[in-house]
C-alpha cells in the first residue's frame, strides 16, 4: 500500500521533533554552534539542524548518530509498559495505545537521514581522518544509506515496531 511520505511524517511528528532535538543536544554537548533548527515542517526534510562543521571527527559522528541512540532508547522506554498489556495480556487501555503510538513514532525516526549520512561521509573521506573513524564511519554510512533505501519498504516502521513491541517481549523471553 502506498502512503505518501508527508502523511507518515505528519502522523509520526513526535519522532521528527525528538530526532532534531537530539541533534541539537549533541551539538550542545560538544559545544558546536547551532545556527538554525527546524524541529518540524511539512516538507522535505521534515526537520533539520544547521550547525558549524565539526572539527573532531568522533564528535561529528556522534552528532550524526545521536538521534539513533536517543530515539531508540526513548521509544523503547516509553512503549515498555504498554507493549505487554496490549500484546501479551490483551488488556490495553487508551493510555497504553497512546504510549505505543509515541514509542513507535519516536523509534521509527531513529534512523539518521541521508543528510546525516552525507555529513559522516564527508568527515571520514577527509584527508587526515583517523583510521578508526574510517573503520567506524564507512559501515555507519553504509547502514544509514541502507536504512534510507529501506524506509521505502517500511524498514523504519519495522524498526520502530521492533523497538517498541519486540524489545519488551525479548526482555521477557530472556528474563523468564
Amino acid at each position, binding site marked *: 500500500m502506498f502512503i505518501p511520505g508527508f502523511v507518515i511524517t505528519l502522523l509520526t511528528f*513526535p519522532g521528527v*521533533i*525528538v*530526532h*532534531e*532535538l537530539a*541533534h*541539537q543536544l549533541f*551539538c*550542545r554537548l560538544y*559545544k*558546536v*554552534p*547551532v*545556527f538554525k*533548527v527546524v*524541529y518540524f515542517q511539512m516538507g522535505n*526534510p*521534515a*526537520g*533539520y*539542524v*544547521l*550547525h*558549524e*562543521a*565539526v*572539527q573532531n571527527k568522533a564528535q561529528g559522528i556522534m*552528532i*550524526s548518530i545521536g538521534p539513533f541512540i536517543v530515539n531508540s532508547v*526513548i521509544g523503547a*522506554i*516509553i*512503549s*515498555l*509498559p*504498554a507493549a*505487554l*498489556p496490549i500484546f*501479551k*495480556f*490483551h*488488556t490495553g487501555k487508551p493510555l497504553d495505545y497512546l*504510549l505505543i503510538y*509515541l514509542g513507535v513514532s*519516536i523509534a521509527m525516526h531513529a534512523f539518521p*537521514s*541521508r*543528510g*546525516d549520512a552525507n*555529513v559522516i561521509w*564527508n568527515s571520514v573521506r577527509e584527508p587526515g581522518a583517523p583510521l578508526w573513524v574510517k573503520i567506524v564511519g564507512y559501515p555507519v554510512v553504509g547502514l544509514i544509506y541502507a536504512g534510507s533505501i529501506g524506509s521505502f519498504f517500511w524498514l523504519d516502521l519495522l524498526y520502530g515496531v521492533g523497538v517498541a513491541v519486540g524489545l*519488551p*517481549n525479548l*526482555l*521477557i*523471553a530472556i*528474563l*523468564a
Partner: protein
Amino acid sequence: MEETLEPEVVPSRDCPECGQPAMEGNHPTPLCADCRQKYVRYPIPVWIRIFGACIAALVLFSLFTFPKDLSVGINLEKGERAEKAGKYLTAQRAMEKVVQKVPGNIEAEGHLLIDAVYTQDMETFKAQYAKLKDRNIEDKELFSAIEEAMDKAGGYFVNDSFTSFMTAHPGAPPSDIEWASYFDKNPRDFYALATYASALNDRKELDREDSVLRVLLSRDKESYIGLELISSLLREEHKPDEALIYNDRLLRINQELPYGLASKARTLLMQKKDREALQLSEKACQLGGSDDIYSQSTLALAYHFNQRPADRDALIRKLNSTIKDTSDRGGFQYVLDVISNKEKFRD
C-alpha cells in the same frame, strides 16, 4: 537531519555578529567567545521544552510502571514454559501471580485452570471454571487445551449418575453385577472405574483390580488415578520393575506431581535404590508441603531404609500429631508396619 555550515571565506577574523575579534583557535566560523557561546546554547523554544518535558514525564512514568508489568510478563512466560515442560506446579504458581496482578486476563485464567487439573487442585479448578464458563475464549489453541483439561477433570469428579448409584447402596457395597451394569451405561466414568478398582483392592482381588485398571488406562492413557493405582498395585504384587514403568509414565505427564514422585520413591526403595529414593521423597515433600501425608510418610520410609533413625522418628512423631484424617492414618499405619517389620516391603 543535520546540515553543516561550511567555513566562510571572511576578510577578517572579526565576529560577523558583533564585530568583536573572533576567538582564537581552529574554529571554522569566526565568532567571538560570547557569540560562540550564544550559538552553542542555541535557544530551544518553549513549545519544544514543553514537548520535551512531556516526553521526559512519560519516560519516568514508563520506568516506574514497567517493573510491575515486566514481573507479570515474566510470570506468564514462566508459567507457559513450565506447562509445556510438564511442570504444572511451577506453572500454577506463576499463573496465580499473574491472575493476582491482572485479574480477568483470559490467557492466565485459562492456563491456571489447565494447571489446576494437572496438579489435582480441585478448589482452584472449580474457581477457575466458574470464572471462565461464560467467557469467550478466542485463542483456539488455549480453548482446545482447556477443553482437553476439562475432559480430564471429569475423571476426578463424582458425577450425578455415580452419586445416585452409590446412594442406592447405603448399607453394603454394590455387587459385581451391579457394577457391570453401571459401566454398561456409563463406559466413560473413569472415576467410577477407579473406585471399583479400589474396592477390588480392599477385597484383595488383585488380579481383577489389575484388569479393571488396564481397562481404565486403555480408555484414558493419561489417567492420573489409573497410573497411581496400578503402580501401587504392582508394588503390592512385588513387581517394582513394572511399577516403575507406570511411575515414569505419570511423571512424564507432570514432573512435579508430589504423589507421582513419592510413589516412584517407594518403588525405588523396593528396588533398594535408597539414596535416589530419599532424594525423590524429599522433592515430593518440598512440592507437596506439610499437608501431603503420603509424601511425608514416604520420606519417613526413605529415612528408615537410608539408616537415618533419628530423622525417621522425628518425622513419625510429627506425623502422629498432625494426622487426623482416617484415610491418611491408614496409609501412614502401613509405613509404620513396614518400619516395625510387621509388613514385608522388600526382600
